[in-house]
């Protein structure tokens, strides 16, 4: 649960136990990994199609 503003400094230091995710028919939690030794940005930049924006055409929305 979220802490209220004035409770923020009183949060327990130990992490809460992991909860089951993706129940109740909702989407699963995204896998956001923690910073590691590899340069994740460089890895992803190499996979970007440099022509992707050229090919990207949309209808106008609101």
């Amino acid at each position, binding site marked *: *649960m*979220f*802490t*209220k*503003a*004035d*409770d*923020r*400094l009183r*949060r327990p230091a130990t992490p*809460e136990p992991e*909860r089951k*995710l*993706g*129940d*109740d*028919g*909702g*989407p*699963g*939690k*995204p*896998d*956001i*990994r*923690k*910073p*590691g030794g590899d*340069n*994740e*940005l460089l*890895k*992803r*930049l190499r*996979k*970007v*199609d*440099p*022509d*992707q*924006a*050229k*090919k*990207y*055409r*949309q*209808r*106008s*929305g*609101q």
Partner: protein
Amino acid sequence: MERILAGIETEYGLWIKGRGADSQVDDAMMLVRSYPGEHFASWDYRFESPRADLRGFTVGQLAYDPEDAKFDTGKSRGSDHEVRSDRILPNGARFYNDHGHPEYATPECFESFETALHDYAGQYTVLRAAKVFEREVGREVKVYKNNTDFHGASYGTHESFLVPRSLGFEKIYQSVLPMLVVRQILTGAGKVGSEHGDWVPYQISQRADFFVEPFNTETLYRRPIFNTRDEPHADPDKWIRLHVISGDANMSPDCSSMKLGLVKLALQLAIVGEAPIWKFKNPVDAFKRISRDMTFEFKIELDSGSWTTAYEVFESYFSAAEAVFDLPSLPDQRHPSSIPETPETEIYRDITMARQQLSKLRSDFSAFAKEVDWAAKKVMLEQIVESEGLTWRDHSLQAYDLEYHNVDPDEGLYFALREMGQVDDLGDAEDCLEDFFVGRLDTSRAVPRGIAVKEHKAHLKTASWRSLVFEVDGKAIEIELDPTRTYRRERLQGLDVVSFIQALRG
């Protein structure tokens, strides 16, 4: 001070290998229908009035992009209900096809960061549908949370604020417009190049190129900074929905929260008659100039012939709020991962954060870039320009720009920056995302909407922002949801439908 109920509606960009804009309505419709999670599929359209104007009249028809009209020539796609394919979710959100864009409208919330996290969680709802759709059609599918295709088409991220009708158009417009012009500095998503006017390497706002008037009721064409659509999401005698269309789609939930918070600040000052009065010579020109001003001076011409800066405009709102409201002084409000208890604590948090960010913008840009989308993307692109020996006219920069907004956490560049620690993470908020998928934290009227979807689908006939219609013993029963009421989930869950309806009647 009364709380202001607000929500965010995001139209997502959709790229499907081998398909184009001419088939986008059909594709978005099928993508939404691919959503595999629990939902209810009967939205109530009775209260929609996109042609009604806050100034008291109704326009005959809304302007339409002539380029899009070509895609629809000779096509028949069925009823509105079929084309939109609404899905109402167990958290009270609405997921549907809007003009060929999968749109996720968050459940309405009283607190800005809570709304922002719903918006963030919504990315995964859209992505989940896209993954299923990708398997079904056997084509690669990408979903982008941005507002431009770099070829002249824009699509929106709108905010809805519940505002007393008694405030009136003039007062709301005068109070809010200056904030809409300057808030992009703290909430813009950033864009490579330009789609109208002189070319620029980079600008702050994704939407600035598309505004042509200070105010009007249009949204698809001839877009205004201040939209006058009068389509209330509650009793129209008491309320209007302020429909803000000039903001960008943010990847950073902190930016989304600030985007709402700054408008709420202007509205709260309007309600007590203390909003600062600014007369900009040309609001549209000011919006565009700020977006393109990489000197960060942000000068704005005034009607009087003199000029001010965006910094002074921001500060005029902040100091007015401090003078008028009894704001708390809390020791640690630097990160909004704690939900404030009152509108006053929310305003205090947003003013404190905004002042810190405006200071960082001028003194420590790398620190500013950790917190604000347009700056984070700019730093990333500068690194690419330098390492790859590119110029800002190289078209590949727009591809990197686009991929910043890819909502797949395994592909999107925003998520890579998060992983690298180059933008702020969500702290403990990340661990609570599941609560936003099912709406466990809300207390607004979205709570009964979500519970009705989850527990009373057999009796629910239609749902909308403002009401639920049930059928019990052959009789239709409509329940108006009070937008100001605090709905306690624990008191509404697990009831039979008759008890549930009685509890909603209060």
